[in-house]
């Protein structure tokens, strides 16, 4: 799925990485616990989260993720967006809650991906 499709499906605001939206992503995960993202996520390119702090973008950067979607209308502060921009990530913000946001993406082919072996 192109990241521009995520923008469309979630009616999301693009906070940075506009120029990257035509790139493809193949899997996603949703969590407010960075502990779990670090422990259970393998190759997912997209992180949906309702948690807003700098550790969200740092965690995503450690895991080489390409796109962060802040759900529930959360708008990250400028330092968070700045970090994501410097690290070549797309940041989106959507009014959707976590469950419907994940559901819409999943139903349109963005799967969960493999667990750690």
């Amino acid at each position, binding site marked *: 799925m192109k990241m521009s499709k995520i923008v469309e499906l979630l009616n999301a605001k693009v906070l940075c990485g506009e120029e990257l939206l035509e790139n493809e992503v193949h899997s996603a995960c949703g969590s407010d616990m*960075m502990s*779990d993202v*670090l422990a259970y996520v393998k190759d997912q390119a997209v992180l949906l989260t309702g948690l807003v702090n700098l*550790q*969200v973008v*740092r965690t995503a950067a*450690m*895991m*080489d993720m390409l796109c962060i979607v802040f759900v529930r209308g959360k708008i990250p502060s400028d330092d968070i967006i700045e970090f994501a921009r410097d690290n070549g990530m797309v940041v989106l913000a959507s009014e959707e809650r976590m469950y419907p946001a994940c559901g819409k993406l999943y139903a349109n082919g963005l799967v969960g991906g493999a667990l*750690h072996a």
Partner: protein
Amino acid sequence: MSVPLKFHYDVHGEDFTSAGNASVQAKKALRQLGYDPNIIRRVSIAMYEGEINMVIHADGGSADIIVYPDYIEIVLADKGPGIPDVSKAMQEGFSTAPDNIRSLGFGAGMGLPNMKKHTDDMKIDTVIGEGTTITMRVNT
């Protein structure tokens, strides 16, 4: 014999905002050295978990990355309270993190086992009341 390349980072314990910053810097440094992305990711995740632990549980410390010809060593040293029962701390789900840490997205008790999972070797030296040093190795 050439001297191994070393990167040193101070990890500040007083404010959570900067937690993870050393790992971000280390990842950049390893990228510049041209390592395979999978190797870099394993080092990054292991160091990041350990760095966050030093901030949450030990009031900060220091992080060193030492680059040897066939492996990368990560040394995380703090002067925190030490770990009373290491085998318990290594269990998935064991955490002493307070609720306010959970609201920041951490404290599931997954960090130490995850560090072990992503490294080829991991050693924990800990003394109650003196501190903890974790040494990890990722073969390159």
